[in-house]
């Protein structure tokens, strides 16, 4: 019950933030849950070690990155007049910020690169899980196709 409420709250928040496409909203919600759960597990499981904190940092960076990617992708397929500059700024600003954050973590803060890579991989895990679940939930085609 509590889990359902949490999911509904996240969905409502995402809808208010402009995630109009239902499946995109679900993807983003799964990413948020995966990043938070993974970071909590990594930090608590390793006793807030460098690896765990690096994982959390990587998960945070890639989740913010994914947030803006989803928002941009929703608009990109139906670009309205005058939205191009905003979209470009969002797209490249996001990339620059991601690059600077990763560079700062690796070069100056001495983050664990394996932890960082594991955190950055949460989005790949999310997308792969989504694809696998979509294939599994696909309704099998009945008949032999000769009806058409």
């Amino acid at each position, binding site marked *: 019950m509590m889990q359902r409420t949490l999911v509904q709250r996240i969905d409502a928040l995402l809808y208010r933030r402009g995630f109009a496409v239902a499946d995109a909203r679900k*993807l983003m919600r799964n990413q948020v849950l995966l990043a938070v759960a993974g970071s909590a597990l990594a930090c608590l499981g390793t006793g807030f070690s460098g690896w765990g904190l690096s994982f959390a940092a990587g998960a945070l960076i890639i989740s913010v*990155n994914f947030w803006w990617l989803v928002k941009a992708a929703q608009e990109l397929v139906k670009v309205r007049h005058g939205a191009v500059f905003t979209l470009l700024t969002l797209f490249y600003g996001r990339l620059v910020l991601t690059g600077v954050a990763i560079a700062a973590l690796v070069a100056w803060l001495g983050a664990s690169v394996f932890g960082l890579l594991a955190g950055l991989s949460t*989005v*790949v895990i999310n997308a792969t899980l*989504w694809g696998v679940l979509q294939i599994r939930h696909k309704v099998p085609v009945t008949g032999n196709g000769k009806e058409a």
Partner: protein
Amino acid sequence: MRKSFLMTLALVLVASAAYASDAPAAGAAVGPTAAWATAIGMAIAAGLCGLGQGMGLKAACEGTARNPEAGGKLTVTLILGLAFIESLAIYALVVNLILLFVKPLGA
């Protein structure tokens, strides 16, 4: 197009190797070589990921223009594709930063 790209790539690789061999000691050559490797690696990764993202976006826009009702499904597929491709670019960035700053190949 492909021939000129391969020739440019070969020239860059040969030039970097030649510059590296000019260095007096083998240890000192690792730094510039790593810098060249990261620059070329990031350029290749960014270029190819850009090509991939552009092709995906082009296909999604064409699909939405032909069948606007399928826009929602296309958007989700586009997001997944963009996320996968961009992850590759980010991995390349991390590997290049490791080469530059962590220096696993030596100082």
